[in-house]
């Protein structure tokens, strides 16, 4: 089956599973996970150096062929997100930026208003902006008009592994957005990822569910297969559902049928 490649910010992605580097018990697992899953885009975060400790360089575990998607986590305002984005770009991590502005510490809900403002500024500065948002169609259209390269609606709160709780709202984005829709946050199982792709999402971003699995390398592969299966199902146009049973085998020509017998009375 032919699939068009996904293009974001002028880069092509043949693999529609995007991944994250957070929460791995050992960062050396990241390279194995990238190899097993084939993921071509991965998130990283920017933090102050702990002056009392040395520390591992996360970028050493990510092959150069994988697109880095620095996030603006820790930002509480558009201004802070813009500052983090500029630092990430200056640090040589490319033009991609995941805007994540969070003011709510309990549910970690993204602040759509601040996120829109940051998108407007950063898109004008030539960033490839992927805003992480609550699925809100009018907002998604505003992000599109502001120059976002994609929109990333959440399925459920970050790290909750609860799946596509916002499915009906994400469906509106899938139906109406011209930029790619990447379902981010809350995807806890490969079946959730497959469901998002069956709905027509262009990609999914999975971090916690892979990183905190007992075997993150195998789980990366499982998610990759699920994403590919879901995508293929979407392109194949799924059959309709029905309230009543519809026999899969023909209801005529039974071996022991008497001519003119009514099929419905057959035991």
């Amino acid at each position, binding site marked *: 089956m032919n699939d068009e490649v996904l293009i974001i910010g002028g880069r092509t992605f043949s693999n529609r599973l995007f991944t*994250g580097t957070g929460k791995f018990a050992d960062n050396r697992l990241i390279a194995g996970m990238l190899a097993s899953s084939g993921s071509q885009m991965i998130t990283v*975060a*920017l*933090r102050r*150096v702990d002056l009392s400790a040395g520390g591992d360089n996360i970028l050493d575990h990510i092959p150069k062929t994988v697109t880095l998607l620095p996030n603006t986590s820790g930002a509480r305002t558009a201004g802070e997100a813009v*500052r983090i984005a500029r630092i990430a770009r*200056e*640090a040589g991590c490319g033009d991609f930026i995941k805007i994540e502005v969070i003011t709510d510490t309990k549910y970690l809900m993204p602040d759509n208003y601040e996120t829109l403002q940051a998108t407007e500024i950063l898109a004008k500065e030539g960033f490839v902006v992927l805003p992480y948002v609550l699925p809100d169609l009018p907002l998604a259209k505003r992000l599109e008009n502001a120059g976002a390269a994609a929109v990333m609606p959440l399925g459920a709160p970050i*790290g909750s592994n609860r799946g596509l709780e916002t499915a009906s709202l994400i469906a509106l984005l899938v139906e109406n957005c011209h930029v790619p829709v990447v379902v981010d946050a809350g995807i806890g199982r490969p079946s959730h990822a497959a469901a998002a792709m069956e709905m027509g999402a262009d990609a999914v971003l999975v971090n916690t569910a892979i990183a905190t699995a007992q075997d993150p390398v195998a789980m990366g592969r499982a998610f990759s297969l699920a994403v590919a299966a879901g995508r293929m199902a979407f392109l194949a146009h799924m059959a309709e559902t029905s309230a009543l049973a519809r026999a899969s085998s023909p209801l005529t020509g039974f071996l022991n049928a008497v001519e003119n017998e009514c099929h419905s009375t057959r035991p």
Partner: protein
Amino acid sequence: MRVTINGKSEQVPAGTIEQLVRQRGLKPEALVVEHNQRIVRQAQWAQVRLQEGDILELLRFVGGG
């Protein structure tokens, strides 16, 4: 001389960013330096002399989703 490093006021000897990085034993390849809200690329670290009251942010990429 006092400068602010990562939000903390600290006494440092006079010198450049490069010297400070070396004194602190930080790995340069993983380090991002913001000096008075301006990013200083590694190639320029040896040219930027610290001044009293400077504000430095020493950052690095870490795991995140």
